């Protein structure tokens, strides 16, 4: 267990991961196939006698790549197409294969293992019934139906080899195109709110939802051969592990991968178990399990898991909120005392608030790495505005005649602040802290995307695995936590706000 509980450990979590030179740090992107491949890599390494830790479903491509370059992780699974189009954009020729990519990556201190054996290129899929009704078999035929509604994964929406390129190549006229989570897109197809989505060739859902994969008749999609990318400096430190990882080359064909995806997503088998089966099949021995990272060890009893996630969540919220109070209260007081400076301070914390939370989390990675620290820092920044604004408003709301009365008594400014102004503003200030805390509890779920754990972990894993009970295991405690925080502050207000000010 990485994080026991409490404030200190949340801060210690990052140094712990950043300096873990004794363990091979494997990560995976936040979709099932990547998690399975990550799990296989971790099991293979530990099978070779190298302790390995797996940060399951760390985030998107950019996040994993940045974490790799920053030395936060050692290895993660990716695809040649992704590396060409997204990472080496402009530096690699279109459709580059492993041999072409290897020297380009080497120049960046990154090595490449593979190809692992299957090509998981993008495809566009429709419900078979819907496609038959419209008589669509190929991507070219999509152009005849401008009213079709498309829902694409956010990555696909923005990639050169995604929707923009696809629309250009096939002259697709559709305007009802939205970006959304890949796993949610399947739901959209099923309930009829979407007509087509992007797929991966090895998606288990193709079978499950009876989807028709439209033929890429103009050969638009590049190859997406699965590989492992790794830091070159890790190779020397974990030589036995890398020897074993090299042996994975060519061992996973498309059918094997689709089968493993189906086991995880349709048969609800834990990814760790799916991976263990694969490793056992290919090596003929049962592997020793990898260290559980902050991913989702499914074998843990549900209650214990919820309790652990709740504690992680509380640690994120508590540390960030306490730090925010410590900084925002003085800032609010300063803003109230110096109106000019106050405008600047309020504008600055306001701007921070406008940064989308996911973007802010990603900005934190180059500065603070992955894990609890960057998540805490982002939550801290988000908590500033409500507290600064309410402290400012509360102090400005103190009637000038009361301030005059206090001054006329001969009280010095600090005593006026402590004995008169702050008590009078306390209700407003507490309301600010309360709203910061409640927002914080909700936003902290996103921390799971950068490896901070917390109640977001079961939510995102549940979305990925289409597992409603798992989603609820995160969502319900998170809602209850928000209510509890609200209740605690209501109580605090009753105890702290002076009796003379209550109605």
């Amino acid at each position, binding site marked *: 267990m990485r994080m026991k509980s409490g404030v200190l450990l949340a801060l210690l979590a990052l140094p712990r991961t950043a300096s873990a030179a004794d363990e091979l740090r494997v990560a995976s992107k936040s979709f099932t196939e990547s998690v399975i491949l990550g799990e296989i890599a971790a099991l293979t390494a530990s099978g070779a006698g190298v302790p390995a830790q797996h940060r399951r479903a760390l985030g998107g491509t950019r996040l994993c790549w940045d974490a790799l370059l920053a030395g936060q992780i050692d290895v993660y699974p990716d695809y040649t197409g992704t590396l060409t189009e997204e990472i080496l954009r402009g530096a690699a020729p279109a459709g580059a294969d492993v041999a072409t990519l290897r020297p380009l990556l080497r120049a960046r201190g990154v090595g490449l293992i593979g190809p692992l054996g299957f090509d998981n290129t993008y495809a566009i899929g429709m419900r078979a019934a819907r496609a038959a009704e419209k008589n669509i078999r190929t991507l070219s035929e999509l152009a005849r139906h401008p009213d079709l509604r498309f829902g694409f994964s956010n990555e696909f929406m923005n990639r050169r080899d995604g929707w923009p390129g696809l629309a250009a190549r096939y002259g697709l006229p559709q305007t009802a195109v939205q970006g959304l989570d890949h796993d949610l897109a399947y739901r959209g197809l099923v309930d009829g709110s979407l007509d087509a989505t992007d797929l991966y060739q090895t998606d288990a859902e193709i079978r499950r939802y009876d989807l028709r994969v439209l033929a890429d008749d103009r050969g638009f999609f590049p190859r997406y051969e699965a590989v492992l990318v790794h830091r070159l400096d890790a190779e020397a430190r974990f030589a036995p592990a890398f020897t074993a990882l090299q042996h994975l080359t060519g061992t996973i064909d498309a059918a094997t991968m689709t089968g493993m995806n189906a086991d995880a997503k349709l048969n609800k088998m834990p990814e760790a178990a799916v991976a263990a089966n694969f490793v056992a099949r290919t090596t003929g021995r049962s592997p020793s399990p990898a260290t559980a990272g902050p991913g989702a060890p499914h074998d843990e009893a549900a209650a214990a898991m919820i309790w652990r996630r709740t504690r992680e969540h509380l640690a994120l919220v508590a540390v960030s909120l306490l730090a925010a109070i410590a900084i925002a209260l003085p800032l609010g007081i300063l803003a109230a005392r110096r109106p000019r400076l106050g405008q600047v301070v309020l504008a600055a914390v306001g701007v921070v608030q406008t940064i989308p939370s996911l973007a802010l989390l990603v900005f934190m990675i180059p500065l603070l790495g992955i894990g609890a620290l960057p998540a805490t820092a982002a939550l801290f920044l988000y908590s500033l505005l409500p507290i600064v604004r309410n402290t400012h408003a509360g102090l400005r709301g103190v009637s000038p005649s009361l301030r*005059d009365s206090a001054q*006329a008594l*001969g009280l010095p400014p600090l005593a006026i602040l402590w004995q008169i102004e702050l008590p009078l503003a306390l209700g407003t200030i507490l309301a600010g802290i309360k709203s910061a805390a409640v927002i914080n509890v909700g936003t902290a779920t996103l921390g799971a995307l950068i490896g901070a754990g917390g109640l977001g972990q079961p939510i995102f894993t549940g979305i990925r695995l289409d597992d409603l009970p798992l989603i609820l295991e995160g969502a319900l405690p998170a809602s209850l936590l928000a209510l509890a925080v609200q209740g605690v502050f209501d109580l605090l207000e009753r105890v702290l706000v002076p009796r003379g000010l209550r109605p």
Partner: protein
Amino acid sequence: MTETPAALEFVDVAKRYGPVAALAPLRLQVARGETLVLIGPSGCGKTTVLRLALGLEHPDAGSVRVAGVTLGPDNVRALRRHMGYVVQEGGLFPHLTATANISIMARHLGWAPARIAARQAELVSLTRFPGDALARFPSQLSGGQRQRVGLMRALMLDPDLLLLDEPLGALDPLVRAELQEDLGHVFKQVGKSVVLVTHDLAEAAYLADTVVLMRDGRVVQKGRVVDLVRAPAEPFVTRFVAAQNRPAFDDPGRSS
């Protein structure tokens, strides 16, 4: 100049708020033990006089002297402890009980609880405040009681100079008459220098040794109330006195 300096002296004090002259250069003296009432229509500058005396405002020109000492940024806080300030409705801190309001400055100065209690007991009897109401918050007190608490708070440190800004302004007539009587009683007993601001001539007549009638930031006439009536310095004095004698419902000038 007498040998002992005046309790409060304004030497050619001028004050502007933007384009509005709140005080034309003003000369004013309050002798020791004197009760001086500043009277005049709203906006005549009488409240500004109190704010300048307390150092809540700074003069644009001239100087304010408290017991012979010129008020400045360095000594303003110390001098305020020799002044008591009472405003309309008492200006009480709503989050503090009556006792806590009264004793806030004494506690800040580190007085022993016994000394605070003894001083407070004196004041309670002086202002005829019901002792069992001391633990109440301002919102739980009547208007007259709040005003008495404000008065006790101003008198707590036994200041030499008492400054009151329309202390009876917000009270209903019966309470007002009673508190006016008590104020007169207090002023006589404590023998302090008092500056009281009002726009009520009857109140001035009851409490004042000296009345100063102000208009547009300058002194129109200084003397006893009877002088204002019998020997008005200019027609405005006559108009002001006449307006005061008219019943309120027939009085367009009162609240302008």
